[in-house]
Protein backbone atom coordinates (compact mmCIF):
# COMPACT_ATOMS: atom_id res chain seq x y z
CA UNK A 1 0.00 0.00 0.00
CA UNK A 2 1.04 3.57 -0.61
CA UNK A 3 1.50 5.69 2.47
CA UNK A 4 2.10 9.33 3.28
CA UNK A 5 5.85 8.96 3.38
CA UNK A 6 5.90 7.51 -0.11
CA UNK A 7 3.69 10.18 -1.63
CA UNK A 8 6.41 12.79 -1.62
CA UNK A 9 8.66 10.52 -3.66
CA UNK A 10 6.21 10.95 -6.52
CA UNK A 11 6.20 14.75 -6.16
CA UNK A 12 7.33 15.56 -9.74
CA UNK A 13 4.61 13.33 -11.20
CA UNK A 14 1.96 14.77 -8.91
CA UNK A 15 2.93 18.34 -9.81
CA UNK A 16 2.75 17.58 -13.53
CA UNK A 17 -0.61 15.85 -13.16
CA UNK A 18 -2.07 18.77 -11.22
CA UNK A 19 -0.62 21.28 -13.68
CA UNK A 20 -2.39 19.57 -16.57
CA UNK A 21 -5.69 19.81 -14.70
CA UNK A 22 -5.15 23.48 -13.83
CA UNK A 23 -4.39 24.42 -17.44
CA UNK A 24 -7.49 22.50 -18.53
CA UNK A 25 -9.69 24.31 -16.02
CA UNK A 26 -8.17 27.67 -16.88
CA UNK A 27 -9.26 27.16 -20.48
CA UNK A 28 -12.82 26.68 -19.26
CA UNK A 29 -12.62 30.05 -17.53
CA UNK A 30 -10.72 32.06 -20.10
CA UNK A 31 -8.48 31.25 -23.03
CA UNK A 32 -5.09 32.86 -22.69
CA UNK A 33 -2.10 31.53 -24.56
CA UNK A 34 0.43 33.42 -22.47
CA UNK A 35 -1.04 32.10 -19.21
CA UNK A 36 -1.03 28.49 -20.40
CA UNK A 37 2.54 28.93 -21.60
CA UNK A 38 3.90 30.55 -18.45
CA UNK A 39 1.98 28.21 -16.19
CA UNK A 40 3.34 25.12 -17.92
CA UNK A 41 6.87 26.53 -17.75
CA UNK A 42 6.35 27.14 -14.03
CA UNK A 43 5.01 23.62 -13.58
CA UNK A 44 8.05 22.11 -15.29
CA UNK A 45 10.36 24.31 -13.22
CA UNK A 46 8.55 23.34 -10.02
CA UNK A 47 8.63 19.64 -10.87
CA UNK A 48 12.36 19.98 -11.56
CA UNK A 49 12.99 21.72 -8.24
CA UNK A 50 10.91 19.13 -6.39
CA UNK A 51 13.46 16.53 -7.49
CA UNK A 52 15.97 18.12 -5.13
CA UNK A 53 13.56 17.93 -2.23
CA UNK A 54 13.23 14.19 -2.30
CA UNK A 55 15.99 12.05 -0.91
CA UNK A 56 15.95 8.66 -2.43
CA UNK A 57 18.05 5.59 -2.35
CA UNK A 58 16.30 2.92 -4.32
CA UNK A 59 12.95 3.20 -2.58
CA UNK A 60 10.13 1.29 -4.09
CA UNK A 61 6.79 3.10 -4.05
CA UNK A 62 4.31 0.23 -4.04
CA UNK A 63 5.13 -2.54 -6.50
CA UNK A 64 4.65 -0.21 -9.40
CA UNK A 65 7.33 2.46 -9.12
CA UNK A 66 10.90 2.72 -8.02
CA UNK A 67 12.67 5.97 -7.26
CA UNK A 68 16.44 5.84 -7.22
CA UNK A 69 19.26 8.06 -8.42
CA UNK A 70 18.93 6.64 -11.92
CA UNK A 71 15.23 7.43 -12.22
CA UNK A 72 15.79 10.82 -10.63
CA UNK A 73 18.45 11.72 -13.17
CA UNK A 74 16.20 10.75 -16.08
CA UNK A 75 13.20 12.52 -14.59
CA UNK A 76 15.27 15.69 -14.34
CA UNK A 77 16.57 15.32 -17.87
CA UNK A 78 13.10 14.76 -19.30
CA UNK A 79 11.54 17.64 -17.40
CA UNK A 80 14.35 19.97 -18.48
CA UNK A 81 13.82 18.90 -22.09
CA UNK A 82 10.07 19.47 -21.77
CA UNK A 83 10.76 22.93 -20.33
CA UNK A 84 12.87 23.77 -23.35
CA UNK A 85 10.21 22.44 -25.73
CA UNK A 86 7.47 24.43 -23.99
CA UNK A 87 9.64 27.55 -24.23
CA UNK A 88 10.27 27.23 -27.98
CA UNK A 89 6.60 26.40 -28.59
CA UNK A 90 5.32 29.84 -27.65
CA UNK A 91 6.79 31.81 -30.58
CA UNK A 92 6.03 28.87 -32.87
CA UNK A 93 2.31 28.75 -32.11
CA UNK A 94 1.79 32.43 -31.31
CA UNK A 95 1.18 33.53 -34.87
CA UNK A 96 -0.89 30.51 -35.86
CA UNK A 97 -4.62 30.67 -36.16
CA UNK A 98 -5.64 27.76 -33.92
CA UNK A 99 -6.53 27.04 -30.31
CA UNK A 100 -3.15 27.04 -28.66
CA UNK A 101 -3.84 26.37 -24.99
CA UNK A 102 -4.60 22.66 -25.28
CA UNK A 103 -1.13 22.13 -26.67
CA UNK A 104 0.31 22.72 -23.20
CA UNK A 105 -2.06 20.25 -21.54
CA UNK A 106 -0.98 17.60 -24.00
CA UNK A 107 2.68 18.50 -23.59
CA UNK A 108 2.44 18.24 -19.80
CA UNK A 109 0.56 14.94 -20.00
CA UNK A 110 3.05 13.48 -22.47
CA UNK A 111 5.87 14.53 -20.14
CA UNK A 112 4.00 12.97 -17.23
CA UNK A 113 3.85 9.71 -19.19
CA UNK A 114 7.57 9.90 -19.91
CA UNK A 115 8.63 10.58 -16.33
CA UNK A 116 6.37 7.82 -15.02
CA UNK A 117 7.95 5.50 -17.55
CA UNK A 118 11.44 6.01 -16.18
CA UNK A 119 10.33 5.29 -12.61
CA UNK A 120 8.18 2.30 -13.48
CA UNK A 121 9.20 -1.03 -12.08
CA UNK A 122 6.25 -3.08 -13.24
CA UNK A 123 4.69 -4.06 -16.57
CA UNK A 124 1.42 -2.37 -15.65
CA UNK A 125 2.94 0.98 -14.73
CA UNK A 126 5.17 0.88 -17.78
CA UNK A 127 2.27 0.14 -20.10
CA UNK A 128 0.09 2.84 -18.58
CA UNK A 129 2.77 5.52 -18.72
CA UNK A 130 3.70 4.49 -22.26
CA UNK A 131 0.10 4.91 -23.34
CA UNK A 132 -0.35 8.21 -21.51
CA UNK A 133 2.64 9.46 -23.44
CA UNK A 134 1.61 7.95 -26.78
CA UNK A 135 -2.02 9.05 -26.72
CA UNK A 136 -0.95 12.61 -25.90
CA UNK A 137 1.58 12.42 -28.70
CA UNK A 138 -1.02 11.37 -31.29
CA UNK A 139 -2.81 14.64 -30.70
CA UNK A 140 0.40 16.65 -30.42
CA UNK A 141 1.65 15.38 -33.77
CA UNK A 142 -1.67 16.20 -35.44
CA UNK A 143 -1.99 19.46 -33.52
CA UNK A 144 -2.06 21.74 -36.57
CA UNK A 145 -5.29 20.15 -37.64
CA UNK A 146 -5.82 22.28 -40.73
CA UNK A 147 -2.55 21.01 -42.05
CA UNK A 148 -3.18 17.76 -43.94
CA UNK A 149 0.43 16.65 -43.44
CA UNK A 150 0.00 16.89 -39.68
CA UNK A 151 -3.14 14.74 -39.74
CA UNK A 152 -1.42 12.20 -41.95
CA UNK A 153 1.53 12.04 -39.58
CA UNK A 154 -0.83 11.71 -36.60
CA UNK A 155 -2.77 8.82 -38.12
CA UNK A 156 0.40 7.04 -39.19
CA UNK A 157 1.83 7.40 -35.72
CA UNK A 158 -1.41 6.27 -34.11
CA UNK A 159 -1.63 3.06 -36.13
CA UNK A 160 2.02 2.17 -35.74
CA UNK A 161 2.27 3.09 -32.07
CA UNK A 162 -0.87 1.10 -31.28
CA UNK A 163 0.44 -1.94 -33.17
CA UNK A 164 3.77 -1.69 -31.38
CA UNK A 165 2.08 -1.23 -28.01
CA UNK A 166 0.05 -4.39 -28.52
CA UNK A 167 3.13 -6.29 -29.69
CA UNK A 168 4.88 -5.14 -26.52
CA UNK A 169 1.89 -6.17 -24.42
CA UNK A 170 1.77 -9.61 -25.98
CA UNK A 171 5.43 -9.99 -25.17
CA UNK A 172 4.78 -8.98 -21.56
CA UNK A 173 1.89 -11.47 -21.42
CA UNK A 174 4.15 -14.30 -22.61
CA UNK A 175 6.87 -13.37 -20.12
CA UNK A 176 4.27 -13.20 -17.37
CA UNK A 177 2.84 -16.56 -18.43
CA UNK A 178 6.28 -18.18 -18.08
CA UNK A 179 7.53 -16.43 -14.96
CA UNK A 180 4.43 -15.40 -13.01
CA UNK A 181 6.09 -12.09 -12.20
CA UNK A 182 5.46 -8.64 -13.63
CA UNK A 183 7.75 -6.71 -11.33
CA UNK A 184 11.07 -5.90 -12.93
CA UNK A 185 13.19 -6.07 -9.81
CA UNK A 186 11.82 -9.53 -8.95
CA UNK A 187 11.77 -10.85 -12.49
CA UNK A 188 15.32 -12.10 -12.53
CA UNK A 189 14.73 -14.36 -9.53
CA UNK A 190 11.99 -16.22 -11.38
CA UNK A 191 14.00 -16.92 -14.50
CA UNK A 192 15.50 -20.34 -14.00
CA UNK A 193 17.72 -21.94 -16.61
CA UNK A 194 14.69 -23.87 -17.89
CA UNK A 195 12.59 -20.73 -18.25
CA UNK A 196 15.41 -18.85 -19.98
CA UNK A 197 15.53 -21.52 -22.68
CA UNK A 198 11.76 -21.76 -22.98
CA UNK A 199 10.55 -20.90 -26.45
CA UNK A 200 7.58 -18.88 -25.19
CA UNK A 201 9.82 -16.82 -22.93
CA UNK A 202 12.24 -16.07 -25.76
CA UNK A 203 9.30 -15.24 -28.03
CA UNK A 204 8.05 -12.86 -25.35
CA UNK A 205 11.45 -11.19 -25.12
CA UNK A 206 11.54 -10.82 -28.90
CA UNK A 207 8.12 -9.15 -28.90
CA UNK A 208 9.20 -6.80 -26.12
CA UNK A 209 12.33 -5.90 -28.09
CA UNK A 210 10.16 -5.15 -31.12
CA UNK A 211 7.76 -3.02 -29.09
CA UNK A 212 10.42 -0.96 -27.35
CA UNK A 213 12.50 -0.88 -30.53
CA UNK A 214 9.59 0.85 -32.20
CA UNK A 215 9.45 3.56 -29.55
CA UNK A 216 13.19 4.08 -29.87
CA UNK A 217 12.96 3.90 -33.68
CA UNK A 218 15.60 1.24 -34.10
CA UNK A 219 15.98 -0.50 -37.45
CA UNK A 220 13.88 -2.44 -38.58
CA UNK A 221 11.15 -0.67 -36.60
CA UNK A 222 12.16 2.80 -37.78
CA UNK A 223 9.96 3.33 -40.82
CA UNK A 224 7.61 5.77 -39.11
CA UNK A 225 10.35 8.13 -37.92
CA UNK A 226 11.03 10.38 -40.94
CA UNK A 227 7.33 10.76 -41.74
CA UNK A 228 6.42 11.72 -38.19
CA UNK A 229 9.34 14.12 -37.79
CA UNK A 230 8.56 15.67 -41.13
CA UNK A 231 4.82 15.98 -40.55
CA UNK A 232 4.70 17.09 -36.93
CA UNK A 233 5.21 20.70 -35.80
CA UNK A 234 8.92 21.26 -35.09
CA UNK A 235 8.60 21.50 -31.27
CA UNK A 236 6.65 18.24 -31.28
CA UNK A 237 9.30 16.61 -33.45
CA UNK A 238 11.78 17.68 -30.79
CA UNK A 239 9.62 15.94 -28.19
CA UNK A 240 9.41 12.73 -30.23
CA UNK A 241 13.14 12.78 -30.89
CA UNK A 242 14.24 13.33 -27.32
CA UNK A 243 11.73 12.77 -24.54
CA UNK A 244 9.83 9.80 -25.93
CA UNK A 245 12.97 8.01 -27.11
CA UNK A 246 14.92 8.86 -23.99
CA UNK A 247 12.19 7.54 -21.70
CA UNK A 248 11.90 4.29 -23.67
CA UNK A 249 15.67 3.90 -23.59
CA UNK A 250 15.79 4.54 -19.84
CA UNK A 251 13.23 1.80 -19.31
CA UNK A 252 15.01 -0.60 -21.65
CA UNK A 253 18.30 0.02 -19.85
CA UNK A 254 16.68 -0.80 -16.51
CA UNK A 255 14.90 -3.83 -17.94
CA UNK A 256 18.09 -5.15 -19.51
CA UNK A 257 20.04 -4.44 -16.37
CA UNK A 258 17.49 -6.17 -14.13
CA UNK A 259 17.54 -9.23 -16.35
CA UNK A 260 21.31 -9.16 -16.62
CA UNK A 261 22.83 -12.54 -17.23
CA UNK A 262 19.59 -14.45 -17.12
CA UNK A 263 18.48 -13.93 -20.69
CA UNK A 264 19.25 -16.31 -23.47
CA UNK A 265 22.13 -15.48 -25.75
CA UNK A 266 19.74 -15.10 -28.69
CA UNK A 267 18.23 -12.00 -27.07
CA UNK A 268 21.67 -10.44 -26.85
CA UNK A 269 22.39 -11.28 -30.48
CA UNK A 270 19.06 -9.82 -31.57
CA UNK A 271 19.95 -6.55 -29.83
CA UNK A 272 23.41 -6.52 -31.41
CA UNK A 273 21.98 -7.02 -34.90
CA UNK A 274 19.43 -4.26 -34.28
CA UNK A 275 22.17 -1.92 -33.05
CA UNK A 276 24.40 -2.55 -36.07
CA UNK A 277 21.49 -2.15 -38.49
CA UNK A 278 20.37 1.09 -36.81
CA UNK A 279 23.83 2.64 -36.90
CA UNK A 280 24.44 1.80 -40.56
CA UNK A 281 20.98 2.23 -42.07
CA UNK A 282 20.16 5.38 -40.11
CA UNK A 283 23.30 7.12 -41.28
CA UNK A 284 23.18 5.81 -44.85
CA UNK A 285 19.57 6.81 -45.44
CA UNK A 286 20.26 10.31 -44.14
CA UNK A 287 22.73 10.87 -46.97
CA UNK A 288 20.15 11.43 -49.68
CA UNK A 289 17.68 13.60 -47.78
CA UNK A 290 16.86 17.19 -48.63
CA UNK A 291 14.52 17.87 -45.73
CA UNK A 292 16.32 18.92 -42.58
CA UNK A 293 13.72 17.29 -40.32
CA UNK A 294 14.10 14.01 -42.15
CA UNK A 295 17.88 14.26 -41.90
CA UNK A 296 17.53 14.69 -38.16
CA UNK A 297 15.10 11.75 -38.08
CA UNK A 298 17.55 9.39 -39.76
CA UNK A 299 20.40 10.75 -37.70
CA UNK A 300 18.41 10.04 -34.53
CA UNK A 301 17.99 6.43 -35.67
CA UNK A 302 21.76 6.20 -35.93
CA UNK A 303 22.25 7.81 -32.52
CA UNK A 304 19.93 5.37 -30.81
CA UNK A 305 21.96 2.63 -32.47
CA UNK A 306 25.11 4.08 -30.88
CA UNK A 307 23.36 4.07 -27.52
CA UNK A 308 22.61 0.38 -27.92
CA UNK A 309 26.36 -0.30 -27.95
CA UNK A 310 26.61 1.02 -24.42
CA UNK A 311 23.53 -0.95 -23.41
CA UNK A 312 25.01 -4.14 -24.79
CA UNK A 313 28.28 -3.49 -23.00
CA UNK A 314 26.18 -4.42 -19.94
CA UNK A 315 28.67 -2.91 -17.53
CA UNK A 316 28.54 -0.05 -15.07
CA UNK A 317 30.79 1.91 -17.42
CA UNK A 318 28.31 1.17 -20.18
CA UNK A 319 25.36 2.53 -18.22
CA UNK A 320 27.23 5.72 -17.41
CA UNK A 321 28.38 6.10 -20.99
CA UNK A 322 24.81 5.61 -22.19
CA UNK A 323 23.47 8.20 -19.77
CA UNK A 324 26.20 10.66 -20.69
CA UNK A 325 25.59 10.15 -24.38
CA UNK A 326 21.86 10.52 -23.96
CA UNK A 327 22.39 13.92 -22.31
CA UNK A 328 24.54 15.15 -25.17
CA UNK A 329 22.04 13.73 -27.66
CA UNK A 330 19.19 15.54 -25.89
CA UNK A 331 21.01 18.86 -25.97
CA UNK A 332 22.00 18.55 -29.63
CA UNK A 333 18.60 17.37 -30.87
CA UNK A 334 16.68 19.93 -28.83
CA UNK A 335 18.83 22.74 -30.17
CA UNK A 336 18.51 21.50 -33.74
CA UNK A 337 14.73 21.36 -33.61
CA UNK A 338 14.74 24.54 -31.54
CA UNK A 339 16.45 26.37 -34.40
CA UNK A 340 14.08 24.91 -36.98
CA UNK A 341 11.05 26.06 -35.04
CA UNK A 342 12.74 29.36 -34.14
CA UNK A 343 13.17 30.18 -37.80
CA UNK A 344 9.72 29.07 -38.91
CA UNK A 345 7.34 31.76 -40.04
CA UNK A 346 3.61 32.20 -39.74
CA UNK A 347 2.36 29.28 -41.80
CA UNK A 348 5.47 27.52 -42.93
CA UNK A 349 8.53 25.86 -41.56
CA UNK A 350 12.01 26.11 -42.93
CA UNK A 351 12.69 22.46 -43.52
CA UNK A 352 14.22 22.31 -46.96
CA UNK A 353 17.99 22.24 -46.98
CA UNK A 354 18.08 25.01 -49.59
CA UNK A 355 16.14 27.27 -47.23
CA UNK A 356 19.18 27.38 -45.03
CA UNK A 357 21.43 28.69 -47.77
CA UNK A 358 23.19 31.82 -46.57
CA UNK A 359 21.93 31.61 -42.99
CA UNK A 360 25.37 32.53 -41.69
CA UNK A 361 25.49 35.81 -43.60
CA UNK A 362 22.19 36.96 -42.14
CA UNK A 363 21.97 35.34 -38.71
CA UNK A 364 25.59 34.55 -37.81
CA UNK A 365 24.95 33.51 -34.20
CA UNK A 366 22.14 31.19 -35.10
CA UNK A 367 24.25 29.64 -37.84
CA UNK A 368 27.13 29.27 -35.39
CA UNK A 369 24.87 27.43 -32.95
CA UNK A 370 23.47 25.20 -35.68
CA UNK A 371 27.00 24.39 -36.85
CA UNK A 372 27.95 23.59 -33.28
CA UNK A 373 24.94 21.28 -32.98
CA UNK A 374 25.77 19.50 -36.21
CA UNK A 375 29.41 19.09 -35.17
CA UNK A 376 28.24 17.72 -31.83
CA UNK A 377 25.91 15.23 -33.54
CA UNK A 378 28.78 14.25 -35.82
CA UNK A 379 31.07 13.87 -32.81
CA UNK A 380 33.81 16.40 -33.59
CA UNK A 381 36.27 17.10 -30.74
CA UNK A 382 35.55 20.03 -28.39
CA UNK A 383 31.80 19.43 -28.64
CA UNK A 384 29.61 17.49 -26.24
CA UNK A 385 28.89 14.82 -28.85
CA UNK A 386 32.58 13.92 -29.09
CA UNK A 387 32.88 13.22 -25.38
CA UNK A 388 29.68 11.19 -25.50
CA UNK A 389 30.96 9.10 -28.35
CA UNK A 390 34.32 8.76 -26.66
CA UNK A 391 32.71 7.18 -23.58
CA UNK A 392 30.56 4.95 -25.78
CA UNK A 393 33.66 3.66 -27.52
CA UNK A 394 35.37 3.22 -24.19
CA UNK A 395 32.51 1.10 -22.86
CA UNK A 396 32.35 -0.91 -26.09
CA UNK A 397 36.07 -1.63 -26.00
CA UNK A 398 35.94 -2.32 -22.26
CA UNK A 399 33.46 -5.14 -22.90
CA UNK A 400 35.32 -6.34 -26.02
CA UNK A 401 32.45 -5.61 -28.40
CA UNK A 402 34.77 -5.26 -31.37
CA UNK A 403 32.29 -5.54 -34.22
CA UNK A 404 29.86 -3.10 -32.64
CA UNK A 405 32.65 -0.63 -31.91
CA UNK A 406 33.99 -0.79 -35.45
CA UNK A 407 30.50 -0.26 -36.89
CA UNK A 408 30.09 2.72 -34.56
CA UNK A 409 33.26 4.33 -35.86
CA UNK A 410 32.49 3.62 -39.51
CA UNK A 411 28.94 4.93 -39.35
CA UNK A 412 30.15 8.04 -37.52
CA UNK A 413 32.32 8.79 -40.53
CA UNK A 414 29.35 8.33 -42.84
CA UNK A 415 27.38 10.70 -40.62
CA UNK A 416 30.07 13.35 -40.88
CA UNK A 417 29.28 13.78 -44.56
CA UNK A 418 25.64 14.79 -44.23
CA UNK A 419 26.13 16.92 -41.13
CA UNK A 420 28.82 18.90 -42.89
CA UNK A 421 26.61 19.17 -45.98
CA UNK A 422 24.04 21.05 -43.91
CA UNK A 423 26.74 23.20 -42.31
CA UNK A 424 28.22 24.02 -45.71
CA UNK A 425 24.81 25.11 -46.95
CA UNK A 426 24.58 27.73 -44.22
CA UNK A 427 27.92 29.26 -45.16
CA UNK A 428 27.13 29.48 -48.87
CA UNK A 429 26.48 32.99 -50.09
CA UNK A 430 22.94 33.60 -51.19
CA UNK A 431 21.40 36.58 -52.92
CA UNK A 432 18.02 36.17 -51.27
CA UNK A 433 16.51 39.10 -49.36
CA UNK A 434 17.00 39.40 -45.66
CA UNK A 435 13.42 38.77 -44.58
CA UNK A 436 13.75 35.12 -45.54
CA UNK A 437 14.67 34.30 -41.97
CA UNK A 438 11.90 36.39 -40.58
CA UNK A 439 11.07 34.17 -37.65
CA UNK A 440 13.13 34.25 -34.53
CA UNK A 441 12.96 37.40 -32.52
CA UNK A 442 11.63 35.98 -29.28
CA UNK A 443 14.02 36.82 -26.46
CA UNK A 444 13.44 33.90 -23.99
CA UNK A 445 13.86 31.37 -26.80
CA UNK A 446 17.08 33.12 -27.89
CA UNK A 447 18.41 32.96 -24.33
CA UNK A 448 17.64 29.23 -24.10
CA UNK A 449 19.31 28.56 -27.44
CA UNK A 450 22.37 30.50 -26.26
CA UNK A 451 22.35 28.39 -23.12
CA UNK A 452 22.32 25.23 -25.23
CA UNK A 453 25.34 26.55 -27.13
CA UNK A 454 27.18 27.01 -23.83
CA UNK A 455 26.18 23.51 -22.65
CA UNK A 456 27.47 21.95 -25.86
CA UNK A 457 30.83 23.68 -25.49
CA UNK A 458 31.05 23.21 -21.73
CA UNK A 459 30.39 19.46 -21.82
CA UNK A 460 32.76 19.14 -24.75
CA UNK A 461 35.62 20.87 -22.96
CA UNK A 462 34.91 20.03 -19.32
CA UNK A 463 33.03 16.71 -19.33
CA UNK A 464 33.99 16.19 -15.69
CA UNK A 465 31.10 18.22 -14.31
CA UNK A 466 28.45 16.09 -15.97
CA UNK A 467 30.36 12.90 -15.21
CA UNK A 468 30.46 13.81 -11.52
CA UNK A 469 26.70 14.32 -11.46
CA UNK A 470 26.15 10.98 -13.18
CA UNK A 471 28.65 9.30 -10.87
CA UNK A 472 26.93 10.79 -7.85
CA UNK A 473 23.40 9.78 -8.85
CA UNK A 474 24.07 6.49 -10.55
CA UNK A 475 26.72 4.59 -8.62
CA UNK A 476 24.82 1.51 -9.78
CA UNK A 477 21.23 1.08 -10.79
Amino acid at each position, binding site marked *: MINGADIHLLLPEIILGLAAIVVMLSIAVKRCHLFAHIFSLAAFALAFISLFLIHVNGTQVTDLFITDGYSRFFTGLIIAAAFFIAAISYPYFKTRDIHKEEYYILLILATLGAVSMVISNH*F*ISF*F*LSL*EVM*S*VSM*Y*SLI*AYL*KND*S*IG*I*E*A*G*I*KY*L*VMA*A*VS*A*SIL*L*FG*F*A*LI*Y*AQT*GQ*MELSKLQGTISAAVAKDI*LFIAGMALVIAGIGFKMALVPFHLWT*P*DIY*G*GAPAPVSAFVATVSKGAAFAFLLRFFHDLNGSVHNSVWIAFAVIAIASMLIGNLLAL*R*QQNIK*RILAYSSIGHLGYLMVALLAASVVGIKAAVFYLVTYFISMLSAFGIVSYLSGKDNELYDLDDYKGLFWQRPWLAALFTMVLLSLAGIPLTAGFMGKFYLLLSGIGSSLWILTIVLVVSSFVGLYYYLRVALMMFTHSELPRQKFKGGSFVPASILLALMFIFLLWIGIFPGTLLDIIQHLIPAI
Partner: protein
Amino acid sequence: MMTHIPTNEGLLLAAILFLLGLIGTMTRRNIIYILMCLEIMLNACGLAFVVAGAKWMQADGQVMFIFILAMAAAEVSVGLALILQMHHQHKTVDVNALNQLKD
Protein backbone atom coordinates in the same frame (compact mmCIF):
# COMPACT_ATOMS: atom_id res chain seq x y z
CA MET B 1 -11.47 -20.17 -6.80
CA MET B 2 -10.95 -19.86 -10.51
CA THR B 3 -11.70 -22.90 -12.58
CA HIS B 4 -8.71 -24.24 -14.38
CA ILE B 5 -8.03 -22.79 -17.83
CA PRO B 6 -5.60 -24.78 -19.99
CA THR B 7 -2.71 -22.35 -20.39
CA ASN B 8 -1.28 -23.46 -23.70
CA GLU B 9 -4.64 -23.59 -25.46
CA GLY B 10 -5.54 -20.20 -24.04
CA LEU B 11 -2.28 -18.64 -25.19
CA LEU B 12 -2.71 -20.28 -28.59
CA LEU B 13 -6.17 -18.75 -28.96
CA ALA B 14 -4.78 -15.36 -27.93
CA ALA B 15 -1.94 -15.70 -30.43
CA ILE B 16 -4.36 -16.59 -33.24
CA LEU B 17 -6.54 -13.58 -32.43
CA PHE B 18 -3.45 -11.40 -32.24
CA LEU B 19 -2.23 -12.56 -35.63
CA LEU B 20 -5.67 -12.03 -37.15
CA GLY B 21 -5.62 -8.47 -35.87
CA LEU B 22 -2.07 -7.91 -37.11
CA ILE B 23 -2.91 -9.24 -40.57
CA GLY B 24 -6.01 -7.05 -40.58
CA THR B 25 -4.09 -3.87 -39.76
CA MET B 26 -1.63 -4.60 -42.52
CA THR B 27 -4.06 -5.56 -45.27
CA ARG B 28 -7.09 -3.35 -44.64
CA ARG B 29 -7.22 -0.02 -46.45
CA ASN B 30 -10.15 1.44 -44.56
CA ILE B 31 -8.89 3.29 -41.49
CA ILE B 32 -11.94 2.36 -39.43
CA TYR B 33 -11.31 -1.35 -40.03
CA ILE B 34 -7.67 -0.77 -39.11
CA LEU B 35 -8.78 0.67 -35.77
CA MET B 36 -11.05 -2.34 -35.24
CA CYS B 37 -8.17 -4.71 -35.97
CA LEU B 38 -6.05 -2.79 -33.45
CA GLU B 39 -8.78 -3.42 -30.90
CA ILE B 40 -8.65 -7.13 -31.71
CA MET B 41 -4.88 -7.13 -31.14
CA LEU B 42 -5.18 -5.29 -27.82
CA ASN B 43 -7.94 -7.60 -26.63
CA ALA B 44 -5.91 -10.64 -27.66
CA CYS B 45 -3.16 -9.31 -25.37
CA GLY B 46 -5.77 -8.92 -22.64
CA LEU B 47 -6.86 -12.52 -23.13
CA ALA B 48 -3.25 -13.67 -22.92
CA PHE B 49 -2.86 -11.79 -19.64
CA VAL B 50 -6.03 -13.34 -18.22
CA VAL B 51 -4.86 -16.82 -19.19
CA ALA B 52 -1.42 -16.17 -17.69
CA GLY B 53 -3.00 -14.79 -14.53
CA ALA B 54 -5.18 -17.89 -14.25
CA LYS B 55 -2.12 -20.10 -14.57
CA TRP B 56 -0.46 -18.42 -11.59
CA MET B 57 -3.72 -18.01 -9.66
CA GLN B 58 -3.11 -14.27 -9.46
CA ALA B 59 -5.48 -11.39 -10.08
CA ASP B 60 -2.73 -9.38 -11.82
CA GLY B 61 -3.66 -10.67 -15.25
CA GLN B 62 -7.23 -9.49 -14.91
CA VAL B 63 -6.12 -6.13 -13.51
CA MET B 64 -3.94 -5.73 -16.57
CA PHE B 65 -6.91 -6.56 -18.77
CA ILE B 66 -8.96 -3.74 -17.25
CA PHE B 67 -6.10 -1.31 -17.85
CA ILE B 68 -5.77 -2.51 -21.43
CA LEU B 69 -9.51 -1.97 -22.00
CA ALA B 70 -9.32 1.55 -20.62
CA MET B 71 -6.27 2.48 -22.67
CA ALA B 72 -7.75 0.96 -25.83
CA ALA B 73 -10.83 3.12 -25.36
CA ALA B 74 -8.67 6.24 -24.98
CA GLU B 75 -6.64 5.30 -28.02
CA VAL B 76 -9.71 4.75 -30.17
CA SER B 77 -11.32 8.02 -29.10
CA VAL B 78 -8.26 9.96 -30.21
CA GLY B 79 -8.11 7.81 -33.33
CA LEU B 80 -11.72 8.60 -34.23
CA ALA B 81 -11.07 12.32 -33.78
CA LEU B 82 -8.15 12.05 -36.19
CA ILE B 83 -10.29 10.07 -38.63
CA LEU B 84 -12.92 12.83 -38.55
CA GLN B 85 -10.23 15.34 -39.49
CA MET B 86 -8.94 13.04 -42.20
CA HIS B 87 -12.43 12.61 -43.63
CA HIS B 88 -12.91 16.36 -43.43
CA GLN B 89 -9.80 16.99 -45.50
CA HIS B 90 -9.64 14.07 -47.90
CA LYS B 91 -13.35 13.12 -48.09
CA THR B 92 -12.37 9.48 -47.73
CA VAL B 93 -11.42 6.96 -45.05
CA ASP B 94 -9.05 5.13 -47.35
CA VAL B 95 -5.52 5.21 -45.94
CA ASN B 96 -4.07 5.31 -49.46
CA ALA B 97 -5.12 8.96 -49.49
CA LEU B 98 -2.43 9.60 -46.87
CA ASN B 99 0.49 9.74 -49.25
CA GLN B 100 1.96 13.21 -48.89
CA LEU B 101 4.81 12.25 -46.58
CA LYS B 102 7.46 10.33 -48.43
CA ASP B 103 11.11 10.49 -49.36
